[in-house]
């Protein structure tokens, strides 16, 4: 009986959450032709581990991850003017791997206090070097297949850079928020910020190279939609 009552109470709470919060969705597009990405060939071919891995077909920078119809990935979308609402301590950890001497994924967004686990799936050494502007800097050794490294950040910060100085083409950017209302656009350009309480907000979309666009939005019980279009002139 007690168990049934508990389940009923949880069900009502969950329904209340859904009724009182909507999803914020949208699509990010790019107009214009972005500059050519830089090849890692000249750097990677000097490294015996990497030359074996890629056998002449070397990767490039991925500053502009654009779909066939201009869908723009890796854009950080977040609500502005919200702070002190982090649920990071109880949120599931986010994982970032070092694979083929590249960070995968290269763009990550987490909350303050949320765990970020950095793996090394490569068989060779990396150093995991963070170069933040608001949080403390760190530089740690990670041997090939070595133990995972765990990071948490106390202060919000956009594009906190992770780099490997052993392989100087390796970068990842971690945006840290002290609230859960953010998302990254995927390869289809789409993003979803879940469970946003109804209200009026400023929504910001930031691309590392193209800067920030903002929009004033109103989120209702059934959510809201907002698209952004970046342009390369």
């Amino acid at each position, binding site marked *: 009986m007690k168990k049934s009552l508990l389940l009923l109470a949880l069900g009502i709470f969950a329904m209340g959450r859904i009724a009182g919060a909507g999803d914020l969705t949208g699509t990010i597009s790019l107009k214009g032709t972005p500059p050519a990405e830089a090849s*890692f060939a000249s750097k990677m071919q000097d490294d015996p581990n990497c030359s074996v891995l890629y056998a002449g077909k070397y990767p490039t920078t991925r500053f502009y991850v654009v779909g066939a119809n201009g869908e723009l990935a890796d854009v950080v979308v977040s609500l502005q003017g919200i702070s002190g609402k982090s649920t990071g301590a109880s949120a599931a950890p986010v994982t970032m791997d070092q694979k083929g001497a590249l960070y995968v994924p290269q763009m990550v967004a987490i909350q303050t206090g949320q765990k970020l686990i950095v793996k090394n799936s490569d068989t060779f050494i990396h150093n995991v070097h963070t*170069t933040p502007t608001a949080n403390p800097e760190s*530089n740690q050794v990670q041997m090939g297949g070595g133990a995972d490294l765990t990071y948490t950040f106390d202060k919000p910060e956009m594009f906190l850079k992770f780099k490997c*100085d*052993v392989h*100087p083409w390796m970068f990842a950017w971690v945006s840290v928020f002290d609230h859960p209302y953010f998302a990254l656009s995927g390869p289809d350009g789409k993003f979803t910020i879940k469970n946003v309480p109804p209200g009026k907000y400023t929504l910001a979309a930031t691309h*590392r190279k193209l800067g920030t666009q903002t929009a004033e939005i109103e989120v209702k019980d059934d959510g809201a939609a907002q698209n952004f279009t970046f342009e390369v002139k």
Partner: protein
Amino acid sequence: MNQKYNPALFWFAVLNAVATFLLIGLGGLVTSHEAGMSVPDWPTTYGYNMFLFPVDKWIGGIFYEHSHRLLASVVGLLTTILAVWLWLQDSRKWIHWLGIGAFLLVIAQGILGGLRVRWQLDWLGVPHGAVAQTFLVLTCSIALFTSRWWIHSAAEKQIYVPRGLRSHVLYVTILIFIQLLIAATMRHQHAGLAITDFPLAYGKIWPATTPEAIAHYNATRPAGTFGNPITAFQVNLQLIHRLVAYTIFLGVAAAAGLARKKLGGRDPLTKFAVFWLVLLSLQIVLGAATIWSNKAADVTTLHVMVGASALLTGMLWWLVAQRRTRLAG
């Protein structure tokens, strides 16, 4: 002066100076390859005693940083031996203290390099670079002071070098040192090229540095592999670097012209000044090549080494001129 020329001491001082020059080149490679933090610990290397670090782990940026540390240890050892040797064998008190100064400077430089790694402070790379140039000048000066020419030149008739010419060369040399500080600041921004074209800058003589213009440069400049976006400060710094380079070139050209006029075309100091001008011409070509090659590591490092050579040439020219003038009475 009772000091006698000691060939062994002189050639050892030359060896130390050459090793220091190579160390600056290797340090240049470390920064050009963005490898300064590739070994996160110091004085150990990935937990190993640095002299026992396995060769198969010298990969990527570790190769440059670890080699730099090993060569720095060699220079430290050579400088220590040189300081002791000068103290024991040279009768000139002032050169004893010069040797001690070099010893203290190389220790300070090692600690500075170590702290840059341990404290993860990028900006410490700038004083590290400045001390490196100062130390190179010091080791080369010691080699000059222990040379046969310096010690036995008192017995020969020397030609006076006019004060105006000496002062001119000294001022240009100081300007080169300031230029090297600007260059070290640029290199330790880790943002790639702040201006990607030459001789113009973003198609203009003096480009806009408004926030909108900087955002446009960042969005449209060729994608380098570096991580940081450029700032207005970095654009202005490179423009200043270019202006100072032109000023130095004119200063060195004037020095060569003045030397020819005052000392004659056959005077060794005139020939040395012409060599200086050739170095500066090469340096400007290398500066342009650094931009045109999108900061290729080997070109950029050569630019660093020729810059160090230009500083050294100016300083040695001035020291020789001072010596000649003093002996000419």
